[in-house]
């Protein structure tokens, strides 16, 4: 199976919060550049722990590390709030002021591509 359609949500984690003021560190990178998904979804995708996955939406694509969390229902993935998740979020708020950070239609697939470190990720916006 090449990939699967999912709903993407984002949110805080304690380690993400502990590193709010040290976002350029390895600790933040490991915590935030990751995608939590149900074990059954990982099996369907042929993805093991720490494999990289590509998450694609209508607004962009990002590479993150897979992590099993069976608390997520099947068909829904969670990426901690931060630069990697936001790489695939729309800037259009539909006049409401608030972007859709949760409930975004996305496609997840296994990839051999590497995760971009935060500074390189920012450089992709500099065109």
């Amino acid at each position, binding site marked *: 199976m090449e990939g699967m359609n999912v709903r993407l949500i984002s949110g*805080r984690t304690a380690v993400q*919060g502990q590193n709010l*003021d*040290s976002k350029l560190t390895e600790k933040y990178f490991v915590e935030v550049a990751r995608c939590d998904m149900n074990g059954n979804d990982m099996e369907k995708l042929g993805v093991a722990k720490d494999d990289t996955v590509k998450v694609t939406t209508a607004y962009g694509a990002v590479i993150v590390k897979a992590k099993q969390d069976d608390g997520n*229902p099947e068909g829904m993935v969670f990426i901690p709030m931060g630069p990697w998740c936001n790489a695939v979020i729309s800037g259009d708020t539909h006049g*409401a002021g608030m972007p859709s950070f949760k409930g975004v239609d996305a496609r997840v697939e296994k990839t051999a591509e590497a995760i971009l470190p935060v*500074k390189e990720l920012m450089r992709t916006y500099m065109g």
Partner: protein
Amino acid sequence: MVEVTDVVCSLCGCVCDDIVVEVENNEIVKVKRGACSVGKSKLLGHERIKSPAIRENGELRECSYDEAIKKAAEILYKSRRPLLYGWSSTVCEADKVGVELTEDLGAVMDNTASVCHGPSVLAINDVGLPSCTLGEVKNRADLVIYWGANPSQAHANHMKRYSYVSKGYWTAEGKKGKKMVVVDVRKTMTTKMADVFVQIKQGYDYPVFSALRAILRGHEDVVPDEVGGVPKEQLLEVANMVKESKFMMTFFGMGVTHTGARHNNIVNAIQFTRAAHLHTKANIMPLRGHYNVAGINQVCTWETGFPFAIDMSRGYAWYNPGEQSATDLLYRADCDAAMIIASDPGAHFPGESLKHLAKIPVIQIDPYANPTTEFADVVIPAAVSGIEAEGNVYRMDNIPIRLRKILDTDYLPDEEILERILTEIRAMREKEGE
């Protein structure tokens, strides 16, 4: 070694004010008690921006405060439509100067509520908010509902200090005498603690609030067998818990504001609270993120009449979130310079909005380097409010609390940096007028 008591945490909206730290050689060496893991991490400190700097040929060159402040003033003065964004991780005294700077420049001022509880603010504008202080919650609430929130991770002291686990005057038994309902789309550490976990389908908050309203108003016959993935039996169970409680408190988070109907979700959450008033005492409160995001909303409201997304380009305050909110402004490429203070849009804004931030001159005022620094043309390091600078902040229940200064520093506080930028801009205008 000096023990400092009653330290106030400047991290999240809980603003815990009973922290004890040990200070040695002008450094916090130990957090003895009171702080959660997130607050402790902040108090113990991180690597700082070492010096003011100006970007030249793609690289940041270290410079003096005077040079950086002058350059920042030049950028803002030459700009036709600057965006001044952030303001939630600093004190109200700095925010007040920010409003003055916005008015002086005819700029757009927005704060982090815009990507956090902005929809809650809009809903409160619409229908008001039956709410109370966290002290009242601690002393009275016997039913606590967390909806679309995971305080175990994001507000780690919240349950212990103020809600489910705390012991108060009429809640002396702590959680033994209380019930907790958690509504979320996934299982979390918080849902594991709940007496009742209501797992809803992502994006279905609005109809679930509506169903509970209907039941509380005596119309359970109109509620179908399942709403948003929740069986009717469980909705009846929760409604019953509301009816039997003496004091119900609902806290809600980003699970509601970031999703689908946005502010309409919150309007319905507030109307659910009002329906509960037919049976019991009930209040509701947003779980605010930054320690002073409530404060910047207060300052903006008393200074301009509006809480966020304020456009001063007409010479008076114009409020239309969705048009002048920072993400929208950047997405539409509708600003030609940005000053980012006490926040990090580089990490927390959609990538599509960052493309414009990369094109325009950016001034960053912050104690720490972060993804926004990559876009910054001028970097001005600031003292850490609550550790190196004092000032007033508003807790998530809008109670003002004064942050203390614990350590000495050579870094300038945000308020002074902003005042000096404003003075420079006024001098430039005066010179041009001569």
